[in-house]
């Protein structure tokens, strides 16, 4: 499986380390329901059969965390970009 790294170009997925679901955003640790929020953040995952946004670390390349839009049924990759939580909608 090839992942188009925004910096390095198309590279084998083997060069990347996987983290998973890109959507969880680290909750506010000071919030009153922080423990519940952190539980969801750390443990609950969207795990769809189909379109999925996930993050990979290009650990053997540019060392950037990359957000990948990939189909978990076909492994087809639609888009990639550098990952950063604050930017997510």
């Amino acid at each position, binding site marked *: *499986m090839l992942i188009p790294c925004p910096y390095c170009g198309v590279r*084998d*997925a*083997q060069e990347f*380390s*996987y*983290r*998973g*679901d890109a959507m969880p955003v680290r909750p506010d640790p000071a919030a009153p329901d922080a423990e*519940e929020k952190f*539980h*969801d953040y*750390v*443990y*609950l*995952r*969207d*795990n*769809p*059969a189909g379109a*999925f946004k*996930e993050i*990979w670390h290009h650990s053997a390349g540019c060392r950037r965390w990359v957000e990948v839009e*990939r189909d*978990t*049924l*076909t*492994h087809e990759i639609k888009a990639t970009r550098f990952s950063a939580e604050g930017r997510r909608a």
Partner: protein
Amino acid sequence: MRYSLFNVIVNGLTKNLFAERAWRDPDPRPAYDVLVIGGGGHGLATAYYLAKNHGIANVAVLEKGWIGSGNAGRNTTIFRSNYLLPGNEPFYEHSLKLWEGLEQELNYNVMASQRGIVNLIHSDAQRDAYVRRGNAMRLAGADSELLDAAQVRKLLPFLNYDDARFPIKGGLLQARAGTARHDAVVWGYARGADKLGVDILQNCEVTGFLRGADGAVTGVETVRGPIRAKKVALAVAGSSSRLASKLDLRLPIESFVLQAFVSEAIKPLIPGVFTFGAGHFYISQSDKGGLVFGGDLDGYNSYAQRGNLPVIEDVMEGGMALLPLLGRLRLLRQWAGLCDMSMDGSPIIDIGPLPGLYLNAGWNYGGFKATPASGWCFAHTIARDEPHPLTAAMRLDRFRTGHVIDEKGVGAQPNLH
């Protein structure tokens, strides 16, 4: 028809004894006491023990395709109870005890063969970790034995002892572990459950759930029409998230592909099961002669039921490092199962999380060996509405409370378990 050598001979002479179906092919009834979703080993065992142990036979097992078409038919057929943590080990040991009598229980030869498993040790630290495990096993009544390098060499003389990057310094043996014929386990439980009155409904995909006013699960929608039930039990590891999403539930589970491989058949070479401790590789030999082996997960979420080359290379490199005579043998077939990888690498058997719903999920890459005990304990949970003592730690709320059962200690990163 009861199966026996005598009947096989009679059948050979008269040629008509086994003309009956191994299990019926009924039409769905409108309602059951219990619906078990998932016609794999776990679902069928659950139905069998519901009927056998709890007298609940008004049960249907719903299977999307043909029974055993999921992970029950896509694994490397190993059973063992060499776990570390108290939340796991007694459960797997109970499962191993059930394996030991399964043929007689089911009147079906599932070819459970206690050939033993050796986890190879390559460093002093690894030996300490395996001794801790071996002792945990013994505390739970399981067997374990520490082998030194010479003992391993005697048992497995064909390994690479002289030219190894990571020398073999010993092994942890569980002699009672072994392999079984995976399809036969499915068929044996199906036949057994069917005889007790359970309906096995193949080609009956669940498309949605029926919900009561309070949100309780009261049945399912299927391609063969709606079916109501007092209790609905999920046993669809590999697809747990997919089904849970139909109930708007998110689970602490991700789906990963695990590949497995079989070589062309050869004359007996490998006596039992053994695992590489410095790479991702384990192997056994089937009764038919094929070497059955595997390694690590393909490390990313997937429902594709097919693997990719890097992991294959990794497995073969491990194989050749350990067993350099493999070079000239040939890979005949590879396949891939979908693993419900949970956040701590241990399974979930629980009541809920919705009224009327029961959850059996998160078997990671270890579901096959758990089949008998999973059915046993899940049936108990469903029948009595309380966890079985052996699965008391395997509850869903453990992630909230912190009582995780993390054998490998890698945390909430499913592909690393």
